[in-house]
């Protein structure tokens, strides 16, 4: 029996409970923190290889078989998501330890991050709705907490708003789970799926209601278009590492859970029978346009990045709505690519804000000459966001656009282009103004020390690497997309 799927979560949890005990000995706590993330990541990577080689891994907690026992399922999709989480969390946790502190209670902050990571890993690996729900809730709570931990007034306000909406979302999801349980009598995903195949036609209204609640619940959590209202405030007022985690990973972990329920529990047949795909497509289109448009008018760098996240989530949802093999591959690949890119951008933005003391885009003119490496990293991220070939973002856009054409939706391929252009109109002026032009820099600032720059450099290299050699992850992505599309 391969223990990796459960050990990923357990290692993180164990570290999460040890770290707060060590709040008086911060260096030790930091070591434990990093150890937890690293060990869990090693398990995650190992699991990805195993899944690629041997197919889906299942793990029964305590040896109890479903439907009573708790099941952990690492299929290609889960393993891929887990791998993304692990790989992105490594540089971010390094940043948490070595970057200048933004929070007063670092041990608690690290414990929260560990808890968040554990919850996200659990969310993508859970094999039954019960554990899925529990991990969703833990994830929500710790995600809210790592915003509020900054302690500023704005961050508390943002996290309270997030909390209220998140609780509504949780309520919706729980209600949907109850409805599904009502129809099927099971919470284990495999059993639910089997049972639904038979019973769905008997209780169409219940299924419809459940779908609606799942949709709304996860829309809130994953910031899918009309319910993204909490995101800009929450992501822009969090500490730097939190912003990177939230924008890079958390919304995607929810989306992965959403995809799993929609495509692998409710089942593709039902999903296709209902007019959900057009809805997803329209929402995605709105997200891409509205998110980008709002991003253009922002003057706060982190808020701009947050609106850009809304737009980018639109890309992922677009692929889900298009539902051709290549579009799904694009979506799944974009989960990774956007995670890398947005983490890079948020870390760079955090460093910029820390070094210059301003978060206004209009104050950053000419700063590229004073902080060349930070802004170079930001430039790499921008190029990836706009979709310049050779950078990560391009590859997923390529797949999405091909996927759109596969099913004859030229309009959505064109939409990707328009959205790319919009991206360019808000990312490039920052880069251009930072490096070129005769305006003198109005603020002080310089590149931080090397240990702070290291995660940025890693992410920047990863963006370029993923832009040139996506074939590294493509086998897993292809398998995952194949799972979604029977």
């Amino acid at each position, binding site marked *: 029996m391969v223990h990796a799927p459960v050990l990923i979560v357990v290692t993180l949890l164990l570290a999460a409970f040890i770290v707060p005990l060590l709040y008086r000995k911060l260096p030790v706590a930091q070591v434990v923190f990093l150890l937890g993330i690293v060990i869990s990541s090693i398990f995650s990577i190992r699991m990805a290889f195993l899944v690629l080689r041997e197919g889906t891994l299942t793990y029964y907690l305590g040896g109890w078989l479903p439907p009573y026992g708790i099941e952990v399922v690492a299929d290609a999709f889960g393993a891929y998501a887990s791998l993304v989480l692990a790989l992105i969390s490594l540089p971010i946790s390094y940043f948490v330890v070595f970057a200048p502190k933004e929070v007063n209670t670092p041990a608690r902050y690290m414990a929260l991050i560990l808890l968040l990571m554990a919850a996200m890993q659990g969310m993508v690996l859970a094999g039954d709705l*019960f554990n899925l729900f*529990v991990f969703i*809730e833990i994830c929500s*709570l710790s995600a809210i907490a790592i915003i509020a931990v900054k302690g500023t007034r704005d961050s*508390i306000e943002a996290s309270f708003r997030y*909390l209220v909406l998140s*609780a*509504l979302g949780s309520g919706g999801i729980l209600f949907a789970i109850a409805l599904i349980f009502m129809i099927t009598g099971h*919470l284990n995903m495999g059993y639910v799926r089997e049972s639904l195949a038979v019973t769905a036609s008997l209780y169409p209204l219940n299924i419809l209601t459940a779908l609606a609640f799942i949709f709304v619940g996860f829309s809130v959590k994953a910031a899918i278009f009309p319910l993204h209202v909490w995101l800009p405030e929450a992501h822009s007022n969090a500490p730097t590492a939190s912003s990177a985690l939230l924008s890079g990973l958390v919304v995607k972990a929810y989306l992965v859970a959403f995809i799993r329920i929609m495509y692998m529990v409710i089942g593709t047949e039902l999903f296709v029978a209902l007019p959900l795909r057009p809805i997803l497509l329209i929402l995605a289109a709105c997200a891409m346009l509205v998110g980008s448009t709002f991003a253009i008018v922002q003057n706060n760098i982190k808020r701009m990045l947050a609106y850009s996240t809304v737009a980018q989530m639109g890309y992922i949802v677009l692929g889900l709505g298009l539902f051709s093999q290549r579009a799904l591959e694009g979506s799944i690949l974009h989960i990774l690519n956007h995670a890398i890119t947005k983490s890079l951008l948020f870390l760079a933005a955090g460093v910029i804000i820390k070094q210059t003391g301003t978060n206004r885009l209009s104050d950053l003119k000419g700063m590229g000459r004073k902080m060349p490496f930070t802004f170079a990293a930001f430039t790499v991220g921008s190029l990836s966001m706009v979709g310049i070939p050779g950078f990560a973002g391009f590859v997923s856009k390529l797949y999405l656009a091909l996927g759109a054409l596969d099913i004859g939706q030229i309009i959505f391929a064109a939409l990707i282009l328009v959205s790319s252009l919009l991206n360019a109109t808000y990312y490039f002026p920052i880069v251009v103004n930072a490096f070129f032009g005769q305006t003198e820099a109005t603020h002080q600032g310089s590149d931080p020390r090397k240990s702070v720059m290291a995660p940025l450099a890693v992410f920047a290299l990863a963006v370029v690497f993923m832009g040139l050699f996506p074939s590294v992850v493509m086998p897993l992505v292809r398998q995952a997309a194949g799972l979604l599309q029977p």
Partner: protein
Amino acid sequence: MAIIEKLSTNLYYLVAIILFIIGFHTMLTHNNLIKKIMGMNIMDTSLFLFFVSIGYRRGGIAPIIKEGIVEYVNPVPSALILTGIVISLSFTAFALGLVILLYKHYGTLDADKIIAMRSREIG
């Protein structure tokens, strides 16, 4: 008549949904932040009630080992509710912590006033 019959058999569901609506409404429309949290609690408990009543319909006997009983109801949903209760406590506690901090910063618990103060500062 048929409606009433249907209602009486589904009484728990009906009450659960009424409570859900009350909670949801309180949470969304009430200005007082603590009230919002109470609404959240009512919403959560209503969902648990919904869940429990489903389990009641299907099962009939608590999953405790006794002589002579071979079949037990599925323990997973009750574990779910148990965890759900604890999670809702955590949410409540955390939200209250945030409320206290907000009160310290703004001196009010009124959501509209807080928004008004913020927009005045920004604008």
